[in-house]
């Protein structure tokens, strides 16, 4: 480690610091090797990234590794941020690529457009009733049973704090496609809840 030993005669001290600043400025500081900026960045985005990756992978240990790899990529590539998207979108997109790389070769597919296109859109009907009646724990468990592609879009929209246009940017699809994927995901969720309700 190249930091000099900061102990000062055995007294306690606070290292780093770094107050809050705008996201772009934070990345510029990271690009200059500012450790406290990296810490602030992690505090700002780490939990969201972990939640999103965890939602997609369903494996906590793997999600933690991917999150760390994502943060490592941020540390190394902060200079590559061009400001063409929000920082949150940028880091989520990095996490998505990291996730895809790690899942490559596994059966799990993040996005299967053919599959998604075949799903009926959600609308009022029996499936809506399943959502009306469902308990939160049931919904959470049902979401974990969804295909990764559905979990991904749901997480990006409801957990990552991104707007629909930002989600579209991360997924590299039009906003309309995001909407159709959301509807398909909700329809699939409703079907799972319906099936579970019928089996009780």
């Amino acid at each position, binding site marked *: 480690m*190249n930091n000099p030993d900061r102990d000062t005669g055995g007294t306690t001290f606070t290292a780093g610091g770094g107050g809050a600043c705008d996201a772009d400025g934070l990345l510029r500081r990271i690009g200059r090797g500012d*450790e406290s900026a990296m810490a602030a960045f992690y505090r700002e985005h780490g939990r969201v990234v972990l939640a999103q990756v965890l939602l997609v992978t369903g494996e906590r240990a793997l999600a933690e590794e991917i999150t*760390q790899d994502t943060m490592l990529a941020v540390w190394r590539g902060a200079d590559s941020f061009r400001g063409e998207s929000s920082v949150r979108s940028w880091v989520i997109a990095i996490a998505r690529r990291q996730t895809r790389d790690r899942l490559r070769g596994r059966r799990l597919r993040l996005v299967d457009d053919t599959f998604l296109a075949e799903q009926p859109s959600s609308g009022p009907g029996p499936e*809506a009733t399943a959502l009306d009646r469902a308990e939160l724990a049931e919904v959470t468990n049902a979401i974990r049973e969804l295909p990764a592609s559905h979990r991904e879009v749901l997480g990006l929209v409801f957990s990552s704090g991104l707007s629909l246009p930002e989600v579209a940017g991360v997924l590299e699809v039009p906003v309309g496609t995001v909407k159709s994927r959301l509807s398909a995901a909700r329809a699939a969720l409703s079907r799972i809840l319906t099936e579970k309700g019928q089996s009780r």
Partner: protein
Amino acid sequence: MNAGPADTHSPHLDLEDLIAEAAGQPVAAQAREHLAHCADCRAEADRWNVVADGVRGVPAATPEAAQPGPPGRTRRPVMAGRWHRAVLAAGSAAAAVLLLVGIGEATGFVHVNLSPGAGTGIALTAVGGCDQLEEASGTLVQTSSGGLAIKTASGQQVTLTTTASTFAAMSGALLGDIRNGAPVRATGYSSDGTIEALIVATAPSGASLEQTHPSLPGGVTVQGTVTDAGAAGFTVVTSGGTRVPVTTSDYTTVTVLNVSPGQLQPGTVTVALGFSGANGTLSARAIVQPMIGVVLSPSGMQRHASVSISSKTAHDCSPVDLAAGELGAGG
């Protein structure tokens, strides 16, 4: 807002408005007004809220232990996994990990970075910047004669020879090695005067702690002598007599410096540095079981591991200087 399918004269909220509402994002005043008076849209918004709440509940509902993965999944050793959990629990500590593994060379230190493929096919690897110094990395094993050897990723075994001056350090869940009277340096986050330690370095009583030590952005470090060592932590008595309580947990990684080579733990990732001896042996000047970021995968060692040798003169790798030098783990 769009026209609803059931009544083209009565506009309903479109999906974007409903999603924004469920996601807690700003919604136009007109849309909010409509939502207050349209039962259909309220019901639809409630359904999306149910979905949103379910999504947010998934991380908490996902078990800590990973589900069995399919063949080929990269597995990391317990040490790395513990650290990952530690940094995620501690927040900004993650940055420390990144910095520890990501920062390049520093004046006065020789860094040995283990990169993908390191050790593969070559049991001994020359250390950049040090013509004579070589390293072997892999898993520590005991030889049939009771000595130590390193089994590299390629399966080769490098026998280590040691002397009384060979520096050895080990890291891991070694809370039991924090003993009263021993020198200690604890790094973590301070809360109400107590340090929740993530990183602890200690050594046998009377030994030196003059080693490199990772920093923790936003964290605090205290150095002194251990007293009141127990299962939940210990107290550091500084040179000025100040007593600082330190708590430990499963997330605390302990590095014990200046142990005898015989105390090193077989089966653990180990890095040895020294000079080539007879028959492919390594005359070890330092043997370290690194503290953080050591990664094992089916393909062998990967990045995230580095050790640093500090010497009396910067980048002087002569045997004499190394013998007098020091080696710290994790930096």
